[in-house]
């Protein structure tokens, strides 16, 4: 029978919509303008615009290679040396939660894998509420992750386009109306895509309100250390909530802060009532994980564990993370300085106030389009730029372009 005689099984399969961010990178690649800049990239770049492999990572890799380890399957929950250190990094060395054994932390496929395991777990066991409340806006992938896990998406006010800052009152208003036991997603630091984070006093009020509303807190921490340059400072909100008695769930990624993007290193933590509950939860997480990928990949977790558990490497890592965060902060300052030099009279304070890899410039879609067409500056339509794509070599040109489309 000829293949062509049969109707394909897939005749009704629709073409999936192109990924908006990928589209930006594709268009950038095709552009022949030597001055082109890619500000869509969600990965750190050095001041030459090149990917950066951390020195502590290379050292860890050399140490690991010398050990000549085998390749036996990890446990479903991952590498113990990694998960313990991962929890400590987020919660703090002396955290009571870790001491009492009431957290369960499993190794996951970076941040996405962690969010998905969490979403699946809540979907299966948090049956009293189906709704997840995301900040408006949130990382684009949050919505389909929770949806595919079977939960429903709602939103709470977060970003204020008028100030390019945090709409604190708007957030409180919306949160006060969220039905009890719903899940609320909070970005621990370096909010993606806006770069707008609550201040500590604001976090305290949010924590209070969330407790009053009896909401389940899901923290997404993809940038610990990468935001302010200080890992404790970036984890402050997470630790505060736990101190206040919230039994949170937490996703962590080591893609950005260790530059381990493609190795897929992450963790998912559930803070439970006690160690007994943690054991039950752990057993169910394993049941969820096994039919997705059986057990997680070793390489990245081993690198991360080596760094976190070796004092010299840990110290070096803290320095390098600080360095990356500092370069971003410097670029923010340079961009604003250059905009002023160009003669821009707009208020660009938000570029410096915002934190982390991304900056919500406030540019409108038409302005973004002009910036791309006339200056070969590539970014997403929502006006988001990745500060990692900015270098001392291109910041002047970037400022020219932004000024030209906004004056």
């Amino acid at each position: 029978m000829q293949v062509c005689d049969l109707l394909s099984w897939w005749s009704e399969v629709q073409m999936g919509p192109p990924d908006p961010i990928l589209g930006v990178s594709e268009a950038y690649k095709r552009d022949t303008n030597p001055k082109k800049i890619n500000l869509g990239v969600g990965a750190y770049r050095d001041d030459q615009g090149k990917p950066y492999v951390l020195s502590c990572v290379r050292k860890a890799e050399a140490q690991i290679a010398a050990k000549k380890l085998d390749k036996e399957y990890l446990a479903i929950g991952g590498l113990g040396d990694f998960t313990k250190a991962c929890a400590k990094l987020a919660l703090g060395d002396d955290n009571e939660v870790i001491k009492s054994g009431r957290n369960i932390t499993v190794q996951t496929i970076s941040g996405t894998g962690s969010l998905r395991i969490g979403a699946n777990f809540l979907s299966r066991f948090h049956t009293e509420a189906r709704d997840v409340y995301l900040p408006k806006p949130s990382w684009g992938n949050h919505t389909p992750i929770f949806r595919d896990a079977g939960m429903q998406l709602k939103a709470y006010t977060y970003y204020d386009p008028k100030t390019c800052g945090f709409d604190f009152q708007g957030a409180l208003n919306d949160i006060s109306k969220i039905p009890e036991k719903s899940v609320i997603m909070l970005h621990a630091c370096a909010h993606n895509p806006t770069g707008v984070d609550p201040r500590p006093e604001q976090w305290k009020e949010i924590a209070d309100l969330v407790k009053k509303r009896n909401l389940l807190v899901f923290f997404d921490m993809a940038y610990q250390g990468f935001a302010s340059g200080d890992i404790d400072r970036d984890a402050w909100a997470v630790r505060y909530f736990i101190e206040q008695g919230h039994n949170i769930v937490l996703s962590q990624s080591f893609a950005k802060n260790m530059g381990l993007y493609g190795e897929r290193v992450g963790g998912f933590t559930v803070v439970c009532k006690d160690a007994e509950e943690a054991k039950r939860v752990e057993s169910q997480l394993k049941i969820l994980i096994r039919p997705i990928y059986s057990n997680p990949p070793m390489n990245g977790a081993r690198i991360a564990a080596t760094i976190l558990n070796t004092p010299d490497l840990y110290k070096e890592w803290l320095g390098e993370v600080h360095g990356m965060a500092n370069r971003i902060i410097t670029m923010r300052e340079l961009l604003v300085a250059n905009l002023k030099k160009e003669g821009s009279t707009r208020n660009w304070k938000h570029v410096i106030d915002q934190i982390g890899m991304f900056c919500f410039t406030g540019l409108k879609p038409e302005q973004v389009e002009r910036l791309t067409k006339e200056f070969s500056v590539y970014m997403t339509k929502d006006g988001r730029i990745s500060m990692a794509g900015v270098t001392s070599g291109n910041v002047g040109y970037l400022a020219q372009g932004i000024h030209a489309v906004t004056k």
Partner: protein
Amino acid sequence: IMSIFAEVPQAPPVAVFKLTADFREDTNAQKVNLGVGAYRTDDCLPWVLPVVKKVEQMIVEDNSLNHEYLPILGLPELRSAASKVALGDDSPAIKDGRVGAVQALGGTGALRIGAEFLRRWYNGTNNTATPVYVSAPTWENHNAVFSDAGFKDIRPYHYWDGEKKGLDVTGIMDDLENAPEHSIFVLHACAHNPTGTDPTPDEWKTISEVMKRRKLFVFFDSAYQGFASGSLDKDAWAIRYFVSEGFELLCAQSFSKNFGLYNERVGNLTVVAQDKDNLARVLSQMEKIVRTTWSNPPSQGARIVAITLNNPDLFIEWKGNVKTMADRVLLMRDQLKAKLIALGTPGTWDHITQQIGMFSFTGLNPKQVQYMIKEKHVYLMASGRINMCGLTSKNIDYVAESIHETVSKVQ
């Protein structure tokens, strides 16, 4: 406040891992672990393939490599090379441009992405009622993969005939004839897990004929290519036959065993579609599924496999390593059967050498298995499945004697 997790029940441990955990705790000097499916040398040690060590060294020394994200569908060099390994270098389907792939986390990941895709897009849209048939018995995780992907109707198809200790051909054919049209069938490409019993080429041909006529969907699980007979081509015969018969199919490939890369999670979901256009749309939807599951796959293992498969010398070296593993298993099969016969162990033991791959379905019943574990400290699955790789020249006598004693004493 009442914990939200107060009602979360303790789940039972995954059996195969519990077995290994129990084995570890056992202090008996003669203990043998015939549970988990991982290759062991004759010294009962894990074996990192020499070609893998070589390629890893190349990677470590290459300062031009970084840790950037792979594309959502994975490393292109891995995807194409892996599909070639399954379908053959000169595959007409590949030449026609109607073969694509999704790099996945091990064979499990490939199965899951395939299952998620089928649930969404096969036999209608989001048709969770499409029956999924898995062999009786099958790898225990098959059920959960398809059910967690949303399928509501997962059924066994006859496979193992406990009486004759072989394939229940009549049973398979009956189930194929009676399955609702468009049902999905999970077929083990070779080295059936857990029975080690594969259809013959003629039996595969008959299966293919019925599946085509009844419009049944072919989903191959290929976890042991090369590892079963020692020959990559021989072990892929069934897959290639079905492709040549015009089936659109999915094939979940694992490189855990044949590359010994267990913990790096290297797998590949090969997609054979009718034409380029269908393939493109299918892959675009696979991307969406991957994006909400793990975003993009891990790079280390993929690099190792891609470099090896795409380098002629390394490829030859790899095939040699694979044959080394397959040959040791074959030797253990021969010797175990010979020893059981020499001991005069009740029953017939031909199935030990007729079966193929890592596993053997010994035919021991649950009571006998318990005796083996508790009294003889020989650990095997409740189904009677043993991992041949757990046998070595040093323990094979003890294991043979243990089986002999068990079968004699326990009914």
